[in-house]
């Protein structure tokens, strides 16, 4: 039995039945990391001693016959843009290479309280800006299914870790598709919850009005278990919704009969690779055969989503990233003439080119004389995009589409063409602009590479996504495939 291939709920049974110990489980995962990490490069840092100590505490609880929580003792990985008290948190940037926060993100505290064992911090595109992890200031993570290819981004490390058996579950963040795209490329389940469902406190901001934390798991059941831990109101985050999160496992029902599914035709139009198109159609046929009503619909403002996103996100980023100036923490450039020189040198040495590109874009979009034409206009289009979804959800319980137009591309293939890179997110960005939940579930392989099916739902309707995804999963076996590393 390869422990590192199991799901959290399977491992939980093994733990409470005392067939394995939490220490054994975590050691198995660290052994796996030792054997494949060189090929994958999912982690920026690993925390073995601390993890094993936590595991011992869980084992002690089990030994004493105490009831343990569903994720107690389960090895989880955290994207390195979430603050971890006393543990270096870099956001994938040189400018924060030495930053050790004196506090933990709310999600990290919640996982900790739930007994989950943090095994390490995962690689990402610098400040979550990118679709491949090639923008990490440290190294590029590789796709476990084909290490010449990218894992997707920006949460590439977290997706690759779960896919490669280097963690059982992980957390990522999704601003324009940064959970769903790597989930699709790596063949795991990824969920971006409704904006406001998960606290952003301690998440190093990229674009505050779009950023949302969510889980990567090996199956839909684990996804529900992770949501149970991380969702809910946080008084430390004003944008976190004041709601009572449900028990998400109640939606794990193998039944989509009567479910009304819309397929936005804009998402199935030209540009979608034929093999991806085929797998999505096949998935829709399966859902239909299981009793769902599937029909094509329209989200007419879809074509404006990408330009809208690339005004709003960089605008917020230009302000969010202003604090990295070398004065208080992080990198400080040497030999500066004066304070302005220090600011400029620090930022020019500390940030990578994609981050600089977006800071410049955003600064421009917010500048006097351009604000109305760019930022304000983008906010208005954002409203139109939301309204598209509102109208669609009057008719449908769920919208379904590809996550990405293609399967994982080769490392280096798009690094010289930012616009091509931005197009990877064309199917995922609208979900962030609308603030609705979106999910990627494995729906097959094309040329040996995983393809993800995107499910989109109404605000705070993660349950419907889980139910459809669970049903799909129960009637397929893609999620059981494991990369041969």
């Amino acid at each position, binding site marked *: 039995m390869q422990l590192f291939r199991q799901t959290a709920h399977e491992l939980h049974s093994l733990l409470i039945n005392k067939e394995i110990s939490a220490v054994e489980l975590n050691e198995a995962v660290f052994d796996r990391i030792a054997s494949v990490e060189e090929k994958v490069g999912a982690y920026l840092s690993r925390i073995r001693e601390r993890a094993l100590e936590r595991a011992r505490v869980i084992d002690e609880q089990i030994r004493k016959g105490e009831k343990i929580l569903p994720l107690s003792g389960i090895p989880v990985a955290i994207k390195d*843009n*979430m*603050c971890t008290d006393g543990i270096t*948190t870099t*956001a994938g940037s040189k400018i*924060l290479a030495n*930053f050790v*926060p*004196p*506090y933990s*993100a709310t999600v990290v505290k919640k996982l900790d309280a739930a007994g989950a064992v943090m095994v390490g911090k995962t690689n990402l595109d610098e400040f979550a800006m990118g679709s491949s992890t090639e923008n990490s200031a440290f190294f590029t993570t590789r796709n476990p299914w084909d290490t010449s290819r990218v894992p997707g981004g920006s949460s590439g490390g977290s997706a690759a870790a779960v896919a490669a058996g280097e963690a059982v579950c992980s957390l990522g963040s999704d601003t324009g598709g940064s959970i769903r795209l790597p989930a699709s490329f790596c063949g795991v389940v990824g969920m971006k919850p409704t904006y406001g469902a998960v606290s*952003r*406190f*301690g*998440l*190093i*901001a990229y*674009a*505050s*009005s779009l950023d949302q934390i969510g889980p990567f798991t090996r199956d839909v059941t684990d996804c529900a278990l992770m949501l149970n831990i991380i969702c809910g109101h946080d*008084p*430390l*985050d*004003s*944008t976190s919704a004041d709601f009572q999160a449900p028990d998400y496992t109640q939606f794990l029902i193998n039944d989509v009969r009567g479910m009304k599914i819309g397929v936005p035709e804009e998402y199935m139009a030209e540009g979608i690779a034929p093999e991806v198109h085929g797998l999505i159609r096949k998935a829709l046929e399966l859902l239909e055969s299981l009793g769902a009503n599937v029909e094509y619909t329209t989200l007419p403002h879809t074509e404006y989503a990408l330009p809208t996103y690339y005004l709003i996100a960089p*605008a*917020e980023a*230009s*302000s969010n990233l*202003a*604090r990295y*100036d070398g*004065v*208080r*923490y992080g990198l400080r450039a040497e030999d500066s003439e004066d*304070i*302005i020189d220090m*600011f400029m040198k620090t930022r020019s040495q500390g940030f990578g080119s994609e981050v600089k590109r977006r800071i410049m874009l955003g*600064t421009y979009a*917010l*500048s*006097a004389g351009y*604000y109305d034409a760019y*930022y304000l206009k983008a906010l208005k289009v954002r409203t139109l995009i939301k309204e598209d979804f509102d109208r669609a959800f009057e008719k449908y319980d769920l919208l379904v589409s590809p996550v990405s137009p293609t399967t994982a591309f080769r490392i280096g293939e798009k690094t010289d063409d930012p616009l091509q890179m931005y197009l990877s997110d064309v199917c995922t960005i609208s979900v962030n602009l609308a603030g609705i939940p979106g999910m990627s579930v494995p729906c097959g392989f094309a040329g040996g590479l995983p393809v993800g099916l995107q499910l989109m739902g109404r605000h705070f309707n993660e349950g419907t996504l889980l139910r459809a995804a669970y049903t799909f999963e129960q009637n397929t076996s893609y999620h059981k495939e494991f990369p041969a590393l």
Partner: protein
Amino acid sequence: MARYETVIGLEVHIELKTRSKIFCDSTTEFGGDPNTHICPVCLGLPGTLPVVNKKVVEYAIRAALALNCQIAGFSKFDRKNYYYPDMPKNYQISQYDLPIAEHGYLDIDTGGGVKRIGITRLHMEEDTGKLVHQGTITTTPFSLVDYNRAGVPLIEIVSEPDLRSPEEACSYMEKLKAIVQYTGVSDCKMEEGSLRCDANISVRPAGSSKLGTKAEIKNLNSFRALQRALSYEVERQIEALEEGGRIVQETRTWDEGKGVTLSMRSKEHAHDYRYFPDPDLVPLVIEKEWVEDIRRSLPELPDARRRRYVMEYGLPGYDAAVLTSTREMADYFEDCVASYSNPKAVSNWIMGDLARLLNANNQEITACRIKPRQLASLLELMEKGTISGKIAKTVFEEMFASGKDAGVIVKEKGLVQISDEGAIAAVVAEVIASNPKSVEDIRAGKEKALGFLVGQVMKATRGKANPELVNRLLKERI
């Protein structure tokens, strides 16, 4: 007639005295070792988020209502972006196009009567930290930053350009300070920086309705600086125009030592603050009932109180204005009048001897050791004739120093007035006998000499003789 008209508008920043900062739990206490009143949020550490302190919103509404503003039902916070090392995030959370309050006013007294000054808006924002230099900013080898003040809540109050002279500007500031202090939301201490002022000032030919080019004057840290800087600036601008030059729109700073304003930066170098709504904060929806609750809890404000002092206590307008200029002084007055019902006498003592001693000792009235009841009992002793007015002043000074009751001091020092006619008559007889020259003068009609004899009697009784009795007895016997 003056050939130029001055136009002034003021932007006033006031620190609110909430216990914690505007977006975190750190204390707002003044002072403290550098960087001890801070936390990850007000330091802007990565991943931290602001959460609005409801008390700040309440205080802002309170001040706004006292300034006759309309409270917005929907308001939001915006980011004002610029780089400065005293700003932890390199943006300041402020309010741009939807401030919490607008369209207010306050009334000031001018030579020509009461004048209404418009208040354009009142908004909330966070304070910045401060840079600490070794020596001066130009010679220091490095700067240090203290973030204790970063995130302290401020309200900014912007006036309409309704002020027409430096004197009016000062009256406006004094009135604004009084009103805000009355509401209890700020100490308004200019010396601690809890009240700060920038001025926009321009001049134009008398009779013109078009505004002249304005200069913005910063670093006005006292009423004196405000008055002097504006007076200087009026002269500078008129002189420039008279010489055929023009005024450049710019920011200038007041140099207190040199007594001049100096150019800081021109409009071309003005910041583009790139304001946009702060995505970390949700818009504020202000419930009407809450606003009405706050309105009901407002104390009587300076103007109303002043009118009441004239009506209810029969005080002259001047007395009423001085007494109500701070809430503490007005409270002191009323507490005093509550136990001694001669308002004019109380007013005289507060505005006279008490104000003089407080000033000389640089003391606040709240810290005064003479409590209102004690002042009242001193005045009672005087009225009952137990002590003379002259003795009362001595007793008052003693009370100010020791905080003892008037009665105790009078007893301890044996200062009770001598009103026994027999005892005084004996002294009077003695004085008359030993001053025949003065007696002659009085008989010859030189009334002045009577004063000298009264003085002699008082001297002999160490000031304790009842002056009225002394006067009467002297007149009777001469």
